[in-house]
């Protein structure tokens, strides 16, 4: 197994979740995932261990997700259709209620401004304040403030009927 294959095997689910947080449309989501993998394939040989591997992978992925937004937006699919595609593959999350909660969370993340979405997806992946700051290139204090406001915005979005 090559280094790249190992990294994708390890962080692939996180990359897929990130793509889902950025793109509602299933085709655009898959397109973004492939772009992230391509960017990672190019960037990985230059990784010298200055940060944790997870931080590096998510940094590349977030940068690519941003560039992906430069493309013209396709017409958004209805939410139910997107959810059907997202959960079409069987997995350990067979629990329908959990899947529904995740879909609602994805929808809320997609509705938030990019800056909030970035900090929230990194936090949801379990990154610490210092790691989020390293990915975004901001101070730890700034990351904390941004995360706190983003969580508040997410809560408001989730509570919206």
């Amino acid at each position, binding site marked *: 197994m090559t280094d790249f294959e190992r990294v994708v095997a390890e962080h692939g689910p996180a990359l897929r979740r990130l793509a889902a947080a950025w793109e509602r449309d299933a085709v655009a989501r898959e397109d973004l995932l492939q772009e992230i993998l391509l960017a990672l394939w190019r960037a990985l040989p230059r990784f010298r261990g200055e940060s944790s591997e997870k931080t590096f992978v998510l940094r590349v992925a977030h940068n690519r997700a941003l560039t992906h937004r430069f493309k013209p937006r396709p017409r958004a699919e209805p939410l139910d259709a997107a959810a059907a595609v997202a959960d079409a593959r069987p997995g350990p999350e067979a629990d329908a209620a*959990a899947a529904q909660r995740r879909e609602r969370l994805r929808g809320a993340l997609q509705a938030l401004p990019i800056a909030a979405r970035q900090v929230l997806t990194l936090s949801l992946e379990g990154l610490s304040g210092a790691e989020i700051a390293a990915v975004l*290139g901001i101070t730890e204090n700034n990351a904390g403030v*941004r995360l706190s406001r983003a969580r508040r915005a997410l*809560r408001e979005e989730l509570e919206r009927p």
Partner: protein
Amino acid sequence: MSTPLAEWEDLAADWRADDQGPVDLAPLRRLLAAQRRRLVAVVLGEAALVLAFGWLSWLVVRDGVEAWEVVWLLTLWGFTVVAVAFALWNRRGTWRSLGASVEEYVRLARLRAQRARASLVFSCGLLVAEVLAVVAQLIWFGHASGPLGLVVGSLLVAAISVVAGACWLAARRIRRELALLDELSRQEAGD
């Protein structure tokens, strides 16, 4: 009201439980193979263009050149050198790792978009200069109304149409990119 920590932890656990199995690398392998083929085609195409250009120049000078041919060749090679030099100069400082922080990447994306816009303005300016130079030469050397004038005139119209269309598309893309980057900056400043 902010999200309580426990509730956030539940949300994060829910989020990370979404594991749809291993990522299929087959599409990426196909993408890489296609990119390699495209790269080879571009390199071969550029090499063929340079060879054709050189061969054409040699054909012209082989049996002695007239004054208008010298001016024409110098114009073509001159514009080519200027275009290549500008393209190389315009890319300065924009080649960085994709692994840079998001803030650094946004700065680079803005720089790239601004350089692309400069490139666009330069391309249009260069085209106008080339058209003026070629038309002036045709008139000066008395070829404007002959078959050469017709061929060159048709080529100029085709070149102007292609460049104008490409510039319009590129300008639209750059505007969209800069608008998104401005929006992101506004969001970050709002923090």
